[in-house]
């Protein structure tokens, strides 16, 4: 009798283990499954969702968002946050357009104008990153508050230098190269996002800097005691974040063909939504290029689908906000399983 009890008990234990293993992998694979269902769901409403033209469109949109999600992911890994990412994009866009416009009016050659635009964009991005990084790491201000401050500063700068209007004078060559350009039929932004993704992945997984990000995010105090140059790394991280955001801003500016003082409007939220829903943990130390790209794909398919089935833009904002919250809840569920 006791024998039978033990064996039935063991069977019970085995099924329990199996069930918990299934539940665990379900939570981990939740996003790809949701992605697929989302795509199919929209396709049922409107079959055009799966048309080659729309799929290309999704790829392109994902390229832009993936850049910003990667930028946000890098700081989130250190338990940080960059609320000012959107306004940074606006400032970079306006600044680069102004630089190119002045190059054009000074009758410079196209390559000089391009360099002027790229240079101004990255310098502005770097300035934003240095500012954020210094306030967070050296002055010890909470990242949320620090970047809420620089959010407003960047909006102010972008609006002031542009006079609040789109800046004209972005040369066609800029647009042709960074928006219209393709390689084997793949749009420029997808190529750029892929290249950056590969480089960033290598940096995160193979470099001392990348390793330090994860260690700092997991336990900042232990990282300090173990002699990691925490402050220096944090400043570099915000610099990297804004640098990637500047790259994305330049790509977007090529698409609009002008410097837009409100280009980055909802990008802070979108980038965070993508990072978090992709599985980057706001608690720090968890996430990477994969989570950023997956999240960007999800958010893009969602808004693309909502556009096609004609869901109102403001309702879309509600959905996006809800997604950030859902992402955090999902993150906690994942943590609790460990």
């Amino acid at each position, binding site marked *: 009798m006791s024998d039978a009890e033990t064996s039935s008990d063991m069977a019970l234990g085995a099924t329990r283990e199996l069930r918990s293993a299934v539940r665990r992998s379900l939570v981990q694979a939740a996003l790809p499954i949701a992605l697929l269902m989302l795509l199919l769901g929209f396709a049922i409403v409107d079959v055009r969702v799966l048309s080659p033209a729309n799929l290309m469109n999704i790829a392109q949109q994902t390229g832009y968002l993936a850049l910003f999600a990667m930028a946000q992911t890098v700081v989130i890994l250190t338990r940080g946050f960059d609320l000012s990412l959107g306004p940074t994009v606006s400032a970079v866009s306006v600044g680069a357009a102004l630089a190119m416009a002045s190059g054009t009016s000074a009758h410079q050659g196209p390559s000089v104008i391009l360099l002027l635009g790229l240079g101004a964009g990255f310098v502005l991005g770097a300035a934003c990153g240095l500012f954020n990084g210094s306030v967070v790491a050296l002055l010890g201000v909470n990242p949320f508050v620090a970047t809420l401050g620089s959010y407003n500063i960047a909006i102010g700068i972008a609006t002031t230098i542009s006079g609040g209007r789109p800046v004209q004078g972005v040369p066609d060559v800029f647009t042709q190269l960074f928006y219209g350009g393709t390689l084997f039929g793949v749009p420029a932004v997808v190529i750029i996002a892929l290249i950056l993704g590969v480089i960033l992945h290598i940096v995160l997984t*193979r*470099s*001392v800097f990348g390793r330090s990000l994860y260690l700092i995010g*997991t336990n900042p105090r*232990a990282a300090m005691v173990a002699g990691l*140059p925490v402050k220096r790394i944090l400043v570099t991280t915000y610099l990297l974040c804004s640098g990637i955001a500047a790259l994305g801003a330049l790509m977007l500016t090529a698409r609009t063909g002008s410097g837009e003082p409100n280009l980055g409007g909802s990008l802070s939220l979108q980038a965070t939504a993508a990072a978090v829903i992709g599985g980057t943990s706001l608690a720090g130390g968890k996430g990477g290029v994969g989570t950023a790209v997956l999240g960007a794909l999800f958010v893009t398919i969602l808004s693309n689908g909502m556009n096609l089935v004609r869901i109102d833009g403001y309702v879309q904002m509600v959905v996006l906000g809800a997604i950030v919250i859902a992402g955090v809840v999902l993150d906690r569920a994942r943590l609790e399983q*460990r």
Partner: protein
Amino acid sequence: MNSLGTAGRQDAPLLELKGISKRFTGVRALDGVDLDVRAGELHVLFGENGAGKSTLINVISGSFPPDEGTFRFGGEEIHDLTPHRARAIGISPVFQEFSLVPSLSVEDNLFLGREIAAGGVLNARRMRKRARTLIDELGFDLDPSRRVDDLSRAHQQMTEIAKALLGRVRLLILDEPTASLTERETGRLFELIVKLKTEGVGLIYVSHRMREIRALADRVTVLRDGRHIRTLDAASASDGDLVELMTGRKIDVLFPAIPHAPGAVTLDVENLTTADGAVQGVNFHARAGEITGIAGLVGCGKSELVRAIYGIDAIVDGMVRLHGHSVEQSGPRESLRRGVAYFPANRVAEGLALSRPIRENSSMTALDLDRFARLGFLRPRAERRAISVVMERLKLRPPDIERNAGALSGGNRQKVMLGRALTRDLQVFLFDEPSVGIDVGAKVEVYEFMKHLVETGAAVVVVSSELPEVLALSNRLYVMHQGRIAAELSGDDKTEQNVLASFFQDHGREAA
């Protein structure tokens, strides 16, 4: 069988567990464990980390439902116990991980979930009065209106104990309660335990400290690998018996004989004062080839002294010299480069990144070396090989360096920290409470490791609140009191009496 059961009903034990088993995904944490605790008895649970003590007390306090076995309390069979119900029937646990809310005051924490209220309005005055009476009864030096996150670990421990004793308690569970208490507070706790025993309260007491077991225990139950090994009368069991039962092997001496060979002064501190005032005008030196001990009560500044040397706590005055050359204080990174390493007391808060692998935790202090990284890029293969060798030497069990540090027992976590000592060239080792929260077997290994460091000519500094530990390990012993050095003892002067005396001697001098 049946008649025996009814006959025994009269003086049935307070708690009676039979055949308790508990499995966690694939691992048997408890395997058919029996335990009985009588009213008015102190029953020690003894075993290495991972032996199942924590799981067992979690079962008893209702946190983990057992998979098998019977659970009787006060003669009644108990099913589906929850932590809340356990408290209601008088089972009160004090865990090592505190259950306090950091942002609330001590008294708010005491009454959390059982506030005294009338019609939804809290009766703050009655709660305050009750809290003060209780804390006075316990004799704790604790201000009930302070916020918990402002308290030292010792005071948090007192709050936790007070909280456990607030309601009606029939079975009190104490999990290493003295780990962060001073000798005096420990003394108070022991008095309290004796009083509880005379009141018929049963106690389950988890401790690695032989002295406490000697002083308090009625019976001892030894667990190993989730199994009940034996229950003995404390009076008839020797220390050696217990350790042998616990480890399954013989450990003759807990403290190894350390071959001190004092050489040149490696570390020399002159008139050191820290910004927070915890250390005031301290002169101190450590020689190569010996262990220098620092003893003192909680809060005497002994930790802060080594932390200031390492570069965590800010220095406002005084000088630190290494090998005779004065050095600017500039933080942990520079200290490591100069060959000074610090092993923090709180390994969870300051030592380890728990959700990262052992490998990354051990190489963390050496990422600036060519050995582990070149041109800013890691050398994964070299890292894996180096850390494998280190962990093999430290006898990490199981020897899997890709497991997360958070999955490890206290002893293994300390080994991960010790691994850092072997990843770069170091001459000064500052250990802050090296044996807190680790079992006897692992303690012996830590001491052996220190012995090895001394043999290779390193200067080892051990800061410890455990007097027997610093007395046995150190060649020279400093005693600190209220931020100052109260005594420097060596040779025959290095006795427990002299250490204790110097706490009070200094008091007198200050008053004069």
